[in-house]
């Protein structure tokens, strides 16, 4: 299907049935990634500031909410994410409950808490895929970018999961400081028998907008990575997909036929609806605007709200009239909002491509953090499989 054909499907359905739901089990995380997209990491004064994470639901209430909203939406696929979802001690119980609710459950985790026991339990729960993040092919660079001592645990998690029969997908977030590591990450995947890779260029939301000058990759760096993905993915049988949108006006994506390109799904018939640990509904993981709350409103009312339709109509002026206006939509508009306070402002990747000098001057518009020298976080062993993996 072409990008243009995709746009034909990209309209909110008449009924309120959707195929998938994401659940954020907890906003907490024991890694300190500067590129983290979680909206609650936004600083005071940022466009996305003020996301309330207090008062997370307890286990019975969370499971009841999941059961109810799955029934209302007709979703058959649940993705468990966070924060770091496995920091919740009831995480595996909730994941098992998700498996009882739908056909497909996938998990996104930082990999620091998947020991052999936890991996086996995920396997028994029928989890269809676990996504782990690898930012570099060596521990020093990976740990520096993650702000935590975690490379070995991530590798260990991949092996544990593979041995438990749970397919692993690696997520690589391409940034100015690690794009050159992409080939080494693909080599690691190949060696470990990992056959799925999600290539995501950095798309700053939350607190990540304060690291644009240092971390935002250039179009040329992304293009070089796609060349690598095409060459090695094809040779080694590693499926490569992109979830963060790459505007076709910046890169000729049709050149990379091995790579599956994704575009913003907000407002489409298969939106990436996210529900947090309080029942709040958002249009995607990067969005801070609330569509409603499933504990207070029926899904049909939330889904019929204006957010998705307004969002879809709200494209940058420079994209108006483009043949890809309704499919590409100008890339990641939530990133445009998070950075500039306006969904219709060209998002940073598009903006930097039009105004390369802006990277040097970005600090005048958005405060750019100076990364302090600090000790890397060492994720707690106590929170690992010994506590969560036991059935």
């Amino acid at each position: 299907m072409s990008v243009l054909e995709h746009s034909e499907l990209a309209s909110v359905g008449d009924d309120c049935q959707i195929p998938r739901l994401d659940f954020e089990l907890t906003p907490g995380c024991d890694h300190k990634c500067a590129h983290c997209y979680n909206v609650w990491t936004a600083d005071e004064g940022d466009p996305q500031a003020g996301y309330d994470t207090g008062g997370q639901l307890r286990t019975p209430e969370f499971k009841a909410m999941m059961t109810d909203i799955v029934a209302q939406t007709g979703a058959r696929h649940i993705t468990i994410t966070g924060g770091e979802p496995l920091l919740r001690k009831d995480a595996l119980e909730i994941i098992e409950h998700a498996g009882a609710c739908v056909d497909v459950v996938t998990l996104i985790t930082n990999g620091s808490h998947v020991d052999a026991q936890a991996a086996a339990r995920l396997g028994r729960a029928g989890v269809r895929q676990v996504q782990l993040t690898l930012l570099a092919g060596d521990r020093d660079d990976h740990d520096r970018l993650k702000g935590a001592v975690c490379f070995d645990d991530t590798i260990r998690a991949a092996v544990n999961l593979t041995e438990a029969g749970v397919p692993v997908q690696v997520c690589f977030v391409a940034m100015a400081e690690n794009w050159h590591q992409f080939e080494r990450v693909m080599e690691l995947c190949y060696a470990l028998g990992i056959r799925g890779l999600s290539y995501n260029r950095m798309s700053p939301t939350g607190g990540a907008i304060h690291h644009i000058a240092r971390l935002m990759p250039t179009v040329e760096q992304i293009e070089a990575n796609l060349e690598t993905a095409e060459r090695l993915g094809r040779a080694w049988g590693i499926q490569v997909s992109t979830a963060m949108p790459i505007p076709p006006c910046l890169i000729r994506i049709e050149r990379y036929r091995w790579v599956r390109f994704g575009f913003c799904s907000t407002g489409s018939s298969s939106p990436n609806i996210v529900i947090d640990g309080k029942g709040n509904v958002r249009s995607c993981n990067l969005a801070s605007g609330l569509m409603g709350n499933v504990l207070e409103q029926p899904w049909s009312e939330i889904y019929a709200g204006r957010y998705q339709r307004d969002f879809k109509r709200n494209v940058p002026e420079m994209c108006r009239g483009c043949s890809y206006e309704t499919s590409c939509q100008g890339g990641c508009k939530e990133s445009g909002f998070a950075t500039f306070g306006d969904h219709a402002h060209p998002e940073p990747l598009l903006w930097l491509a039009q105004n390369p000098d802006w990277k040097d001057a970005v600090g005048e518009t958005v405060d750019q953090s100076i990364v302090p020298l600090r000790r890397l976080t060492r994720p707690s062993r106590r929170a690992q499989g010994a506590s969560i993996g036991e059935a």
Partner: protein
Amino acid sequence: MDLKRLPPSLLIALGLAACESDGDGATVGACLNVDPTVTTGSSSGTSSGSGTTEVGPCLDVDPSITTGGTTIGPCLDVPPGTTSTGADTDTDTDTDTDTDTDGDTDTSTGGDAGAGAPSESSHRSAVLGRLLDAGILPSDVAARLSGEADD
């Protein structure tokens, strides 16, 4: 009429836009650099065909995962050849275009193979062995995987 709304091929046919050669005869429009007729998804057969899996969810899920009852799960074991979409059009920049024009199972990468390339398992074992020798993997994992590297 907003000319930008017209397909590039039509603009070219009307003489309203310049043609640009892609090196292999394919042309693209002057203001849009994607051929609308080119698909962006692979034709691996792992999609349900409903169209929903082509919509890229933000950030986290392989679009190949579908929720329909008839499709397969994560695309982790799809042979390289199954997503072939025909002849490549990027011969100007590829480093291995001499052999990889149809999405076959060529395993040559970075010049460390070539004629008589090893089978995938032996090639993977060699890569794994190199990572083990370089100390990239944690020691306990290295011990667990060293048998695979010896295969």
